[in-house]
């Protein structure tokens, strides 16, 4: 009551000077990159402390320093490259096949209504299939060697690339295509000089997803018949319940993921420098 009275009195009082309160605080996310490292460091530190004091049992999690040691040993013994080289080869070849096919088919779908009507339902049907489930089938089709591994990774990276590509082609500014036509550019020129460069940002963000999926599928691909490979190494560590090796393998896989992501970022910077 008193307040209300007071307020109504003040409302006419022009002698009171008060700065306008700042109410626009917060809700503006900024990037603080050190925070990521900090959280990472804290987690590792807590794990190290917990595992070395025994609060966290060795059955639950490995000691981070032991994991690091395992990685160093792996490196020193040369085994790291013995595992890494075939994995990277599988990743590169599989993803290359999947992504180049994906971009081609995606562009065809984007450009031609017959392809669109014919293939979009097929792609929609393939997309949600867990590709891992098809591994035994691929073994029969492509053999237990590298063929089935390439096929699995290729199929896994193919579908998201197709979808990203034709979406990107659809989103190319139609007035640019009209412009090309009005200047009498040939069909080939319009595709190569207008449609594909215009679709490139969308294709590249699709590439990010495709490569991440490829890494996930790498482990699955190496389930069958791989003696060497990071995925095989992780699976072996899992079956041996060797947590140090398991985490060493997972760490290497994460690093591979980060490397791939940095690669895509660099590629984007190079190809999309006009943005």
């Amino acid at each position, binding site marked *: 009551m008193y307040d209300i009275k007071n307020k109504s009195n003040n409302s006419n009082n022009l002698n009171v000077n008060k700065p306008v309160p700042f109410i626009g605080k917060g809700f503006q996310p900024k990037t603080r990159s050190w925070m990521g490292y900090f959280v990472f460091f804290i987690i590792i530190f807590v794990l190290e402390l917990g595992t070395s004091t025994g609060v966290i049992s060795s059955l639950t999690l490995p000691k981070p320093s032991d994991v690091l040691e395992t990685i160093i040993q792996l490196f020193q013994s040369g085994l790291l490259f013995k595992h890494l080289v075939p994995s990277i080869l599988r990743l590169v070849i599989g993803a290359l096949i999947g992504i180049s096919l994906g971009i081609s088919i995606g562009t065809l779908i984007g450009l031609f209504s017959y392809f669109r009507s014919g293939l979009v339902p097929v792609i929609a049907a393939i997309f949600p299939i867990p590709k891992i489930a098809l591994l035994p089938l691929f073994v029969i089709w492509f053999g237990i060697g590298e063929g089935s591994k390439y096929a699995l990774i290729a199929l896994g990276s193919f579908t998201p690339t197709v979808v990203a590509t034709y979406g990107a082609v659809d989103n190319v*500014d139609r*007035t*640019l295509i*009209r*412009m*090309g*036509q*009005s*200047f*009498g*550019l*040939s069909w080939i*020129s319009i595709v190569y*000089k*207008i449609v594909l*460069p*215009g679709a*490139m940002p969308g294709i590249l963000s699709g590439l990010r997803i495709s490569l991440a999926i490829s890494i996930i599928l790498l482990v699955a691909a190496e389930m069958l018949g791989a003696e060497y490979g990071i995925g095989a190494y992780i699976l072996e560590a899992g079956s041996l319940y060797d947590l140090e090796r398991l985490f060493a393998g997972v760490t290497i896989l994460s690093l591979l993921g980060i490397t791939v992501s940095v690669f895509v970022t660099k590629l984007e910077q190079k190809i*999309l420098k*006009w*943005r």
Partner: protein
Amino acid sequence: MNIKIKNLNHSYDKSKVLSDINLEIMDGQILSIIGPSGCGKSTLLRLIGGLEKPCSGEITQIGSPPAGCLNAMTYIFQDFALLPWRTVEENVSLVLEDHSLSNEIKRSVIDDVLDRTKLKDFSYAFPKQLSGGMKQRVAIARALAVNPAVLLMDEPLSALDSQTRELLLEDFINLWHRKPFTAVYITHNLSEAVRLGHKILVLSRRPGKIIETISIEKPIADRKLIDKDLDQYQKHLWNIMHDEARAADAELLNV
């Protein structure tokens, strides 16, 4: 080269857009077309440029395009339509690449049009680095590069602020003065229409019919921003357009 349009009609589905259009575009002259929005101006331009086919009527080229013309009917778009991943120079080069021209010829054409549009210093800039006025200059340079028989311009200045518009208008007039070209200039801005047009065509609201054609004798180079001679034309045009514009406005609301 002249363009002659005879008894042209055009409709989309059942709605008629253009009705009984007859006109001639004269070589070396600028034809302004004005009309309320939605009356079919852009459609008419697309028909002239061959991007669409008229439902009935004829559009004929009389005479042949000038020597060295690479693209007879050449557009300049309202939103510039520059490729953002190409530099200024590469955007101009785009329209020459499909023609078998020697590198020296290409180079000299590019240099010439960039020079004429005062873009020499921006050859290597990307579109996103340029202001709206600069971008439209690039689009004009690109259009000039193909040495067109007819320039088809669909409200080329309407995406720009009024000062930039005035500057570009002056540049445009200079360009024409130094080397006259044939152009169809669509606008809804009456002062632009009277500044640039040798002839001004007024379209009614949809379906667009020609309701008035006026010619302005005063040389384009002599016309000014504030110009008593032009005022009377502008007033006259506004009197014609006033009712059409109001009706068109109300019509849109009823849709």
